[in-house]
């Protein structure tokens, strides 16, 4: 029987003494968005895996921070770390996410991290 190739030290080789996600710093290229940009969350396919919350899809939020460069969850979930992307912290108004959200809490916000391929300029 042939064994599947699996180098379980591949992550340790790049992250030891540096940390994760620090080991991916500078590997995602130029960031497409900057702090203050209004962004729309794309409703990309979530077949087999995604960590981009369904309730943020199609909603518009504001970039408040470029958090780190890291492989997308969709890739990392199969141990593929070859294509790091930018992650953005995006703030939404809760009223934009939940149709039944009460006006009494109209100023409530939600902040969450979203990878670049899920965002477009609003």
């Amino acid at each position, binding site marked *: 029987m042939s064994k599947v190739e699996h180098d379980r030290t*591949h992550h340790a080789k790049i992250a030891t003494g540096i940390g994760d996600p620090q080991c991916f710093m500078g590997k995602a290229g130029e960031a497409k968005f900057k702090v203050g940009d209004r962004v729309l969350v794309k409703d990309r396919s*979530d077949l087999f895996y995604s960590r981009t*919350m*369904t309730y943020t899809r199609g909603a518009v939020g504001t970039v408040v921070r470029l958090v780190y460069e890291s492989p997308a969850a969709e890739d990392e979930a199969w*141990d593929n770390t070859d294509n790091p992307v930018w992650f953005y912290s995006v703030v939404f108004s809760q009223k934009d996410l939940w149709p039944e959200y009460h006006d009494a809490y109209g100023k409530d916000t939600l902040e969450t991290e979203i990878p670049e391929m899920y965002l477009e300029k609003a």
Partner: protein
Amino acid sequence: MSSSTREEVLRHIQTVGNLQPALHKQTHAPAPTEITHTLFRAYTRPVHDVGGEYDVPIQWTEKEEEVWELNTFATCECLAWRGVWSAEERRRRQNVDVGQTAYLGLPYYGRWLMTAALILVDKQYVTLTELHDKIEEVKKRHEQS
């Protein structure tokens, strides 16, 4: 096989029948034209622990971790430390790959433990036969004590 084995097998078949995800309409591998986009999306939805889903109110109870749960956590962290999986691969396996029924039906650390066993088989550190033999061995030891 003893008659108690047959009883267990038949009880198992019945229980699995009751575990069908409830769509509240008859489903027997329908023709492609009978599946709408909405239904397809619901069926293929990856099960998340990221929140935002509709549910009925449930009672909040505080439960202290049991020893086997702490051991399970430590085992899974060791698998990460030794490079067998990343946190993301672990999440994918224990949330999504188990399917909606098992995700909602099994205890939280039960899913962790099953997933730890499965990745060792998937990545060929042990064979499934070795794992089954071990389960049989432990079962016998447990019956004797």
